[in-house]
């Protein structure tokens, strides 16, 4: 397995803790990871997906402006003739909106999966493997859920 995952925090958000941990977790799970870091623009994501032949793009946002920052993102990806899996996770809504509604909105925008800020890396990894049809070894499963 050597699926490539593009990872970054979108917009002017500078929260680095989450993607640092996610990068480590993805690497440990056997993915090739391209970490764009914080304050990454839509075009940086798209260029990286193109250059590294990314199989998945993981967008993180923790400062409440994800919707604005992601407007037109999937159109740009399509325009570049790419078709990666796209996930987004973090504090995605402003205020006290129910997460179910938030998820629906981001699914409509084109994201394949939407996660809240309590999501553990293991969940994202399990989702990636499921969506990419990568079999988990028993050992990996045990480690990830421990």
């Amino acid at each position, binding site marked *: 397995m050597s699926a490539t995952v593009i990872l970054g*925090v979108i917009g002017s958000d*500078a*929260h*680095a*803790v989450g993607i*640092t*941990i996610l990068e*480590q*977790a993805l690497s*440990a799970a056997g993915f090739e990871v391209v970490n764009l*870091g*914080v*304050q990454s623009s839509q075009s940086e994501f798209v260029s990286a997906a193109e250059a590294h032949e990314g199989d998945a793009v993981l967008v993180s946002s923790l400062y409440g402006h994800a919707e604005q920052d992601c407007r037109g993102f999937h159109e740009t990806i399509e325009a570049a003739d790419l078709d990666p899996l796209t996930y987004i996770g973090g504090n995605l809504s402003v205020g006290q909106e129910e997460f179910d509604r938030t998820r629906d909105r981001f699914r409509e925008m084109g994201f394949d999966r939407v996660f809240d800020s309590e999501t*553990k*890396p293991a969940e994202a990894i399990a989702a990636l493997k499921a969506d990419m049809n990568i079999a988990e070894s028993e050992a990996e499963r045990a*480690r990830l859920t*421990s």
Partner: protein
Amino acid sequence: MLRDTRLSGEDLSRIDEKIRADWSVEEIDFEEAVAYHDSLPRSKQFARVLEDADRPLLQPRAGVPRLDDQITLLRHLEDAGRADLLPTTIDSYTRDNEYEKAQRGLEEARESGDDTLNGFPAVNHGVEGCRKLIESVDAPIEVRHGTPDARLLAAVTFAGGFQSFEGGPISYNIPYTKEHELAETIEHWQFVDRLAGAYTERGVTINREPFGPLTGTLVPPSIAIAVGLVEGMLAATQGVRSVTLGYGQVGNLVQDIAALRALRELGEEYLPDDVTVTTVFHEWMGGFPPDEARASGVIALGAATAAIAEPDKVITKSPQEFGGVPTKEANAEGLRTTRQLIDMMREQDITLDGVEREREFVEKSARSLMDTILELGDEDVAQGVVEAFETGKLDVPFAPSDSAESAVLPARDDDGRVRILQFGDLALDPDLRDVHTDRLDRRARAENRDRSFQMVADDVDAISEGRLIGRPGGEGA
């Protein structure tokens, strides 16, 4: 070329003129500003109040866009919270030097009553606005922000009567932004510090406070201390004479007390004799439990630590920390919980086993980093620290900045002390590295798992989930 040398008066004037082109502020008359500071009562002299205190002084965080609201907020923190020192937190647009946007936000706030800015845009309020704020409360006020290029902010707020200014070229760059060059922020802060020095030479001591907690998440004490020392040395070169070195609570009582002692001792040692060194302890800066009762427990552990370690100042948190900006009532509650604990504990003689051993370890580690920095810069700390960050020999975990390697990963040992799991290129002597690795091995054995990044992930979430150490098995363990 960047050097740790004092800016000349000409440099100062030239830069001053240049930065005021960024945004039309009234001409600042330095002599008039000095006279204004001289007219303030002793109780508003920040450095004097802080340096003369016989107990830890309490200071909250607080900033809203409109002047009258900021006055109401600070008066509440003085009256209901009995804050000893007050803050004024600056908005994000000002931090990005986007004064035009800050102006629009301020005007919207004035029109609608809603707060569209997340802090007080001091540059837009100008010298007069700042002075009204200073005059409206009893305690001295510090400017707290997060601005990589804080030159105009410093010029306005110093002239506006503020006598304390948080931040520094590393601590307001590496944890806050992605693309600022470290050499550039050092140059910018040389101006800020030189301006503070100019006031100081005229008898108006401007207190400077490097931002100790850095990324706020499991920062190993030696790294926080080295950054503070470098920023203190850079400030001293420019004539600053009152430096408050900061440190953020990690939650292990022995390690926190040891780190605060090491911070003070190394501060005295590395900074010139004519600099008065004080220390500030930040209550937990990481993730908080989504529950005010449990958050009060986190705050209380910080307060208990402060009662024993006796820093000169404590920056308090509120029980609403999880939800973002707290109400002024919750902010005052954090102050009162902290004060009750400190006042009940500080007269007790409490001495913990192992503090000295941990202090020595922290000091050795910080020295190892400082030696490397000074060596890399050929005794020039400015050049050295740029080189150290470029090579990863000095590094900050979880730093968003491209100027840092961010290869260091911390994790708690079996006693809950923050150790280093991955060193990257960090310039720690091998015998010191071995201690970190040994301790984390011990934890790994106790938890019957490998020493791995999973510990880091678990530890980052632990306090908000109600524990100190992220043991396997999660919340219920």
